[in-house]
């Protein structure tokens, strides 16, 4: 019996030693394999010099320009920049905001996919000592700052330009189609504001169709069908430049004559490089409500850094500018294109 218990003791001791050895070896391997930056990523280092730039639609044509400005500003101010992977999904956006808040980063600036969904996150961020700013059309309550672009102001610029074109080119009468994104406030403001401004200038312009469409590929197919229903369409207002490019290609697929092309106006918003080039070159994309995207990206990071450091302004208002086929509009477009290096 005593021999048996001695054997058991020896076995247990050997097993414990083996476990200790394996754990020790594994720990040493992990320690050797992880460089300092990896440890920092695991949360062993301070995260206060980190800013998250939560622009949720990384596949939009505006994203590279926004990111360019944000990266330049982050480098200048000595911050690490985190990017969004939400891919326009609200649940993914909420998840990644929770992750960043949990990491205790310095601050986050977010383009909210749903304003109401942000309110609990703002509270959570404040409890964790994380600065929370929004980059949107309006300031959310309780934020530490914002970068605001007034979509209704931008909508009025494009809508009024389209109205003037209808009066000048079509004698005030026009058939209008709207490519919208009603689920998002930006979509509502741009499209509803745009058509209100158009009809204020050209009251006889009539909306004949309204459909969902944001990205180029979906607006291509929607416009192909729209032009079958309304071959004599005159104006298409798209919530974003990406969609305007798709609508333009669908129109050109109908092989329109030069005279027909003169009766078509496509307008969008954002001020993406391909859209501004199309406007300046004199095609049927005749206007875009442009935001200085590199400037907004930089302002977003600077405002967040100011909020973290507690010095300088964390509240920035960014106006839209009109890129159109007027002399002044073309000049604005060329200036922005030069700034973007395009």
């Amino acid at each position, binding site marked *: 019996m005593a021999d048996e218990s001695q054997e058991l003791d020896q076995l247990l001791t050997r097993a414990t030693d083996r476990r200790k050895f394996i754990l020790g070896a594994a720990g040493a391997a992990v320690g050797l394999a992880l460089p300092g930056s990896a440890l920092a990523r695991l949360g062993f280092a301070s995260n206060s010099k980190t800013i998250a730039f939560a622009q949720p639609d990384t596949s939009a044509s505006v994203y590279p320009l926004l990111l360019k400005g944000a990266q330049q500003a982050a480098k200048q101010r000595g911050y690490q920049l985190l990017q969004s992977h939400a891919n326009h999904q609200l649940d993914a956006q909420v998840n990644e905001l929770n992750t960043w808040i949990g990491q205790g980063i310095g601050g986050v600036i977010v383009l909210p996919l749903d304003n109401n969904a942000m309110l609990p996150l703002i509270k959570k961020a404040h409890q964790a000592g994380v600065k929370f700013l929004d980059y949107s059309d309006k300031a959310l309550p309780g934020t530490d700052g914002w970068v605001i672009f007034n979509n209704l102001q931008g909508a009025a610029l494009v809508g009024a330009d389209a109205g003037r074109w209808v009066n000048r080119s079509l004698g005030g009468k026009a058939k209008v189609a709207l490519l919208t994104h009603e689920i998002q406030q930006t979509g509502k403001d741009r499209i509803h504001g745009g058509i209100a401004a158009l009809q204020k200038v050209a009251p006889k312009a009539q909306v004949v169709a*309204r459909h969902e469409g944001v990205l180029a590929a979906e607006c291509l197919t929607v416009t192909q069908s729209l032009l079958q229903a309304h071959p004599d369409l005159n104006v298409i207002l798209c919530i974003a430049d990406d969609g305007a490019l798709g609508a333009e290609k669908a129109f050109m697929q109908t092989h329109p004559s030069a005279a027909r092309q003169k009766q078509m106006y496509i307008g969008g918003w954002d001020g993406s490089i391909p859209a501004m080039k199309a406007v300046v070159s004199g095609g049927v994309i005749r206007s875009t409500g442009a935001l200085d995207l590199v400037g907004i990206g930089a302002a977003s990071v600077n405002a967040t850094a100011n909020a973290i450091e507690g010095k300088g302004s964390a509240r920035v208002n960014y106006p839209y500018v009109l890129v159109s086929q007027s002399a002044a509009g073309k000049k604005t477009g060329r200036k922005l294109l030069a700034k973007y290096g395009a």
Partner: protein
Amino acid sequence: MAHAETAGRPRRRPRVPRRGGSGGMRRLAATLANYQSGGLLIALLVMGAIFTASSANFLTHRNLTVILLQVSIVGILAIPQAMLVLSGYVDLSVGSVAVLAVAVFGEMAKVHHYSLAAAIAIAIAVAAAWGLMNGLLICYLDFSPIIVTLGGFAGARGLSDTITHDVTQFGFGTKFAWLGNGTIATIPVPAVIFLGLFVIGAYIWYEMPLGRHLTAIGADRVAARSLGVSTRLIPCVIYVCSAIAAGLGGLILTSELDGASPSIGIGLELQVLTAVLLGGVAFAGGRGSLWGVLFGILFIGVLNNGLILLNIGPYVVNLAVGAVLIAAAGADAFYQRLERIPVAAAEPEGVEAEAKAQEAVT
């Protein structure tokens, strides 16, 4: 193609005594029953009739051409996808492989200034390599097809984002524009490619042993292997074909837009899978019809086009699409149930004559 279902083998129906009356209708029902997804064809025709009655712009040559153009890309991808699903596999990475090919094409053509032909060849080769990786992992190493292609769904798009940094390359010139915007005998080039691939696909599906092998692999892989069917090589090759089709579809869309947009292919896998499943290919494999898939593709294309012609507002369009798809699936299920009801008129004329002769003798 009347012997369409289950890759070429017509179903035997039990012989029952003929009771007489309404023979014409029964014969019509029996003829339609020979096509799997006959219910979907009827739903498609009914929907077409409704749109024709509601909009003068629906049943026109121009609009039908537009519908053909719009369904072409989904159609090109759906043919190999249907073959994969038939053999019990699935490819969820097609949309991301499409944008990967587009990204490679844009970089090669605009950044590295390769010729159009070289840029297209490299893009298709990259897509094919991705398909080969899928095929090897799934068919030879027995990884889960859903997990591997879900990995591809994220990975291929991530790789394309890394290549492009989300910058859209555009302005590929008139030669490349022909691929998406040109016509051959008034039919859009993408539609010609789709119809050509459909004919090839249908020949493989219904006329070649390969079609029966796909069904056999989907129905019972072990039994198929014991009968000498290449249960690894065949699906592996189809994965490569699926990725090549995805690359081709992406390039056609790039040509239409004259821009290698990083947003290309978003949601494409879902559209393709919807068309395949709506067309009656069983998700578990072993049963399906390529004609059904064609009807599924056309059904979705006609529905989207018709709703726009009728100017259904943005708030109700998704509801309408969901309702019509469920109704179509219900009609198809109902029709397949009808199909199983013994119908004497489905018997060959000779049998009918024989029965009559027997009746006369007795």
